[in-house]
């Protein structure tokens, strides 16, 4: 960096973060100023503010093809981070809309502020090029999420969810950090992009790196809820407020994958065979365990939690095919998955508000009580199952294609078999919705205005992405090319 200390690029690189910060401050002030009856509007302000932020970022802050390091090499201003930032802001906007009509959630400004701060952390996670920045970003994301999971202070389940999330999160992040400290000691640098040269220069033994990486992977596996560290997900998702569970399973997971891709692919190419081996095993175990345990669930939020675990396994298929197509398919998968799973949790949130229950059995007769809501569940669940013409089909296709291209045929076959298991439990839910009758069929399930907008956007998005996949795939490719 030459010339003055600050330049325009530095601020453009963190424009989304700055915007989110200003928005969070605004919401915090409005929370104090607005009269109690008008607090419902805070959700709209958050959502519209985030969408505006996306538009402004797209207009002025698109990074060039050539990635730049800014803020003392802490942040890499590249298209990979940019794609993820847009994705997180979109996800947060939808979550704000889903929350805005829940009484104890959406009428409180602090809820939106916490959500925005954690989105800010995710944006930094996606663009961090330095271990210090990475750790700070991960904690900025996690700490508000602990509070959000336990946001219903009067609810036994919600407080328990926050409590469990905190204990597991604090432990895994401490283990990850221990790995980071060794990484710093072994290489003398904290920069991910300088790491490789140092490893080569010092001729570090691969076994030392295996150990360090094992520590680091604990933290990442927790964030993406991959196999040995997946058990928190069902508990936390079923206890947390439903929109937050949706947010945890999409944006937070996507942020974890953004970090995983960057750290492993950029920082540890020297020991690639080792972590490909490990992550292949993790991928198989994650898919299989997620899908098999989902079969037995009675509560739809737990079912969606196990389904989101299995989806982490599918994304890992694209991840272990270390290639440009692999990276593209990972990003593409996360984009479509974010829309799909947010729609699924959104419909559950709407239904839960009326019925007060998230048991699968209570969904009986939904197609008669609210045909639109039932149809939106149909779209999102079939997309999760990977049915054409929905987005879920093309993303599964692209991760399997990436695996086959690298000769990982066995892994692709296991993935396909798992999708079939998945199809079963998604269809079971749809069976309850469409074929079963209930005594409350006359009671309509009203969809609040904000949820209507969000669900319409998400469902149209799922169908558009499934039918016209190429432009969205290209967005993934843009991000993937910026990785190196």
């Amino acid at each position: 960096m030459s010339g003055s200390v600050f330049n325009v690029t530095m601020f453009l690189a963190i424009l989304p973060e700055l915007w989110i910060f200003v928005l969070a401050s605004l919401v915090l002030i409005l929370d104090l100023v607005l009269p109690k009856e008008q607090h419902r509007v805070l959700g709209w302000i958050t959502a519209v503010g985030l969408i505006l932020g996306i538009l402004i970022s797209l207009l002025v802050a698109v990074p060039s093809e050539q990635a730049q390091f800014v803020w003392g090499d802490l942040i890499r201003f590249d298209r990979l981070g940019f794609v993820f930032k847009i994705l997180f802001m979109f996800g947060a906007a939808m979550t704000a809309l889903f929350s805005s009509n829940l009484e104890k959630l959406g009428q409180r400004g602090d809820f939106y502020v916490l959500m925005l701060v954690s989105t800010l952390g995710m944006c930094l996670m996606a663009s961090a090029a330095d271990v210090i920045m990475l750790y700070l970003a991960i904690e900025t994301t996690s700490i508000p999420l602990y509070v959000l999971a336990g946001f219903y202070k009067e609810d036994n389940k919600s407080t328990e969810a926050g409590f469990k999330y905190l204990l597991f999160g604090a432990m895994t992040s401490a283990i990850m950090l221990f790995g980071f400290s060794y990484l710093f000691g072994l290489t003398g640098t904290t920069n991910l992009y300088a790491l490789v040269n140092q490893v080569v220069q010092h001729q570090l033994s691969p076994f030392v790196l295996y150990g360090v990486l094992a520590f680091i992977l604990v933290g990442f596996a927790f964030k993406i809820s991959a196999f040995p560290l997946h058990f928190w997900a069902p508990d936390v998702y079923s206890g947390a407020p439903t929109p937050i569970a949706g947010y945890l399973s999409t944006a937070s997971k996507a942020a974890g994958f953004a970090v995983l891709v960057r750290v492993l692919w950029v920082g540890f190419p020297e020991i690639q065979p080792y972590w490909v081996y490990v992550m292949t095993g993790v991928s198989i175990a994650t898919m299989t365990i997620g899908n098999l345990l989902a079969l037995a669930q009675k509560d739809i939020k737990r079912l969606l939690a196990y389904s989101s675990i299995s989806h982490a396994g599918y994304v890992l298929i694209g991840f272990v095919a270390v290639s440009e197509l692999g990276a593209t398919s990972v990003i593409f998968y996360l984009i479509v998955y974010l829309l799909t799973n947010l729609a699924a949790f959104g419909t559950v949130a709407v239904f839960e508000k009326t019925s007060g229950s998230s048991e699968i059995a209570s969904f009986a007769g939904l197609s008669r009580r609210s045909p639109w809501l039932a149809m939106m569940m149909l779209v999102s669940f079939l997309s999760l199952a990977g049915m054409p013409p929905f987005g879920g089909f093309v993303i599964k296709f692209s991760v399997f294609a990436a695996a086959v291209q690298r000769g990982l045929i066995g892994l692709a076959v296991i993935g396909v078999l798992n999708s079939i298991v998945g199809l079963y439990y998604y269809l079971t839910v749809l069976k309850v919705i469409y074929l079963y009758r209930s005594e409350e069929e006359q009671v309509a399930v009203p969809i609040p205005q904000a949820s209507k907008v969000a669900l319409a956007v998400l469902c149209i998005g799922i169908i558009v992405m499934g039918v016209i996949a190429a432009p969205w795939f290209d967005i993934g490719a843009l991000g993937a090319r910026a990785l190196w």
Partner: protein
Amino acid sequence: MVPLSWYLIFAAALFSIGLYGVLSRKNAVAILMGVELMLNAVNVNLLAFWRYLTFDKMAGQVFAVIVFAVAASEVAVGLALVISVYRRRQSIVADEINLLKY
């Protein structure tokens, strides 16, 4: 001067004690204390590495400062959540917080 390895062994022991505490303790506050021990081990590591290997650069020191700042905020949030659980259940024993399972 004390060799670097002493610090590293000390940090590794501290980390292991902390991890054992986290995994074996049933009281939520004790679990949080275990996490704190693990984070302290990280700081000992970072500062030892910084002092012995990259004395001319700041990164190690900055990292350590950030780690304890984050640790403090994590514990603040952690205790708040523990209190909110205690108000509901009159207990902070992790074994008894078992509403959500299977």
